């Protein structure tokens, strides 16, 4: 596979890597984000085309796979609803992991069939003489790829509520995880000692893949719905790491650069999500938060909630000069983003200053609420972060909480015993009036009573979020 085109192919890989970097950079600003995504897409196209220039490529089977994949990709991406975006990202992520896993397997099989000396030649000039590096890279890719695949598929099932979104825990779960990890290490050692000698390494490799699949399932199983933003970010990171590891098998730097970028971005997002919940990654992964057993109950939160009717809420809103919406997962469930936008427009027409304050972990994936509101044509200047609104919250006339709960619970600041204590929240309790749209006084995901509901400046507007907002919009129209 060494020939005159090889330098050209390498240069194109470098260009592709640069385009990925530039694309990611452009993705960090709303005004350039769309072009950034295209730039990175061009990088991907170049990398694919360059690979097709390799000497001795045969394209019949490639076309089969590529056409099938492209068709499914186009159809799926144009059909998916914006509210289903977390599931979509979960599936795509899992497929990336699956691809890396299969690449490792295919490469291992080649090696197994042709012995090291000739396999070494297929790796190209400069390949390490010792088979150990390749073996370690294969073992690592297989495990991480398998984990990414099964973990993402389970996350998809949870997010789409095909299985319960609640944490699934059993006694000795940590023990089982520990056993699986030990098994992986043992199989990896057996595999790396003698990677191509007969059936034993093949069995060890199979075991590695299988154990990776099991580990992906057992590690996502105990994680509950509202912690999904962390899990999705983490799985995103895994898929990048798997791709980078595959790059170490075939000694290809574009895989390594792109994989490392994705791995890093996933880890950063994971960190941001954990910070936004004031919890460590370990706590998210292992505590089964929200299963009811570990979470405190916020006992001592008592008092009378003040209900308000939609008509009275209209009068409050009609007098308001500044309004902040605080959407949460409940808005996505109720598909209420469009009517919320209508209400926002009505308020603006009435002379109020309207903003939408979005907590980083609201919804089921990072930035979930932003996408839904953008879909409803809310301009992105109006989408603000808690840090922008909290300092001026006392000057806000009305804060409207729609389907958010834990992220507005004042216990996070006031009650040192609360499991939420220390979590950065949106301080809607500081607003002059806070209207909470909710079906009941039921606690949120964390299982903690919300002291906000019983504050003197809080009004509870009970009912289905979408229907209630529609009533308010109608009230503004009938004026």
């Amino acid at each position, binding site marked *: 596979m060494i020939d005159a085109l090889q330098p050209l192919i390498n240069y194109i890989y470098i260009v592709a890597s640069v385009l990925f970097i530039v694309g990611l950079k452009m993705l960090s600003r709303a005004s350039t984000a769309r072009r950034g995504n295209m730039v990175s897409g061009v990088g991907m196209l170049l990398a694919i085309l360059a690979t097709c220039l390799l000497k001795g490529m045969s394209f019949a089977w490639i076309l089969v796979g*590529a056409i099938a994949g492209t068709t499914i990709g186009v159809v799926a991406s144009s059909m998916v609803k914006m509210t289903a975006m977390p599931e979509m990202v979960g599936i795509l992520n899992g497929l990336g992991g699956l691809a890396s896993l299969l690449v490792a397997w295919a490469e291992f099989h080649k090696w197994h069939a042709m012995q090291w000396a000739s396999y070494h030649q297929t790796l190209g000039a400069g390949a390490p003489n010792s088979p150990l590096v390749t073996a370690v890279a294969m073992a690592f890719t297989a495990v991480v790829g398998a984990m990414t695949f099964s973990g993402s598929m389970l996350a998809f099932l949870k997010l789409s509520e095909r299985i319960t979104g609640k944490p699934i825990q059993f006694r000795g779960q940590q023990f089982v995880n520990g056993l699986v990890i030990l098994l992986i290490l043992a199989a990896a050692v057996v595999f790396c000692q003698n990677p191509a000698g007969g059936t034993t390494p093949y069995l060890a490799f199979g075991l590695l893949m299988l154990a990776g699949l099991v580990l992906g399932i057992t590690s996502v199983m105990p994680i509950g719905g509202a912690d999904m933003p962390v899990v999705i970010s983490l799985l995103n990171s895994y898929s990048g790491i798997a791709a980078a590891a595959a790059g170490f098998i075939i000694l290809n730097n574009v895989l390594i650069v792109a994989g490392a970028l994705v791995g890093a971005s996933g880890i950063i997002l994971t960190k941001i999500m954990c910070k936004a919940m004031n919890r460590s990654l370990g706590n998210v992964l292992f505590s089964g938060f929200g299963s009811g057993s570990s979470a405190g109950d916020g006992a001592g939160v008592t008092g009378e909630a003040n209900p308000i009717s939609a008509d009275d809420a209209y009068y409050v809103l009609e007098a308001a000069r500044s309004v902040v919406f605080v959407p949460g997962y409940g808005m996505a469930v109720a598909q209420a983003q469009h009517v919320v936008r209508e209400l926002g427009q009505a308020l603006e027409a009435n002379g109020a200053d309207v903003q939408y304050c979005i907590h980083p972990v609201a919804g089921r994936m990072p930035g979930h609420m932003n*996408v839904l509101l953008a879909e409803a044509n809310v301009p992105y200047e109006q989408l603000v972060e808690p840090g922008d609104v909290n300092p001026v919250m006392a000057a806000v006339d009305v804060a409207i909480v729609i389907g958010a709960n834990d992220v507005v619970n004042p216990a996070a600041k006031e009650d040192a015993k609360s499991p939420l204590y220390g979590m950065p929240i949106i301080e809607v309790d500081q607003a002059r009036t806070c209207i909470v749209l909710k079906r009941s006084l039921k606690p949120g995901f964390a299982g903690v009573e919300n002291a906000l509901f019983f504050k003197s400046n809080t009004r509870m507007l009970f009912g289905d979020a979408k229907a209630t907002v529609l009533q308010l919009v109608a009230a503004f129209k009938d004026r």
Partner: protein
Amino acid sequence: MLGLLFFVFVVAIFLGIELISKVPSQLHTPLMSGSNAISGITIVGALIAVGQPDGGPLVTVLGVVAVAAAMINVVGGYLVSDRMLRMFKRKDEGPKPS
């Protein structure tokens, strides 16, 4: 060669951390699906697995499935990110005709 690859790997991780830590939270979802599409780069490995002649039937089967899976990841990831990013509008740009 191997040392160089590790060097590239480590530098790329730090570069990624620098690039991403500045992304505002409103762009997290498209960022995630966009970077997710980039992780489909493993398609290069899949193409080599299928396209190079020295495989055998099992390698071809594994490779074709890998190409298809990576292709869904790549095409789906970029298109869905674009769909989301198309919706992010400034106030003066007005609502998009849907």
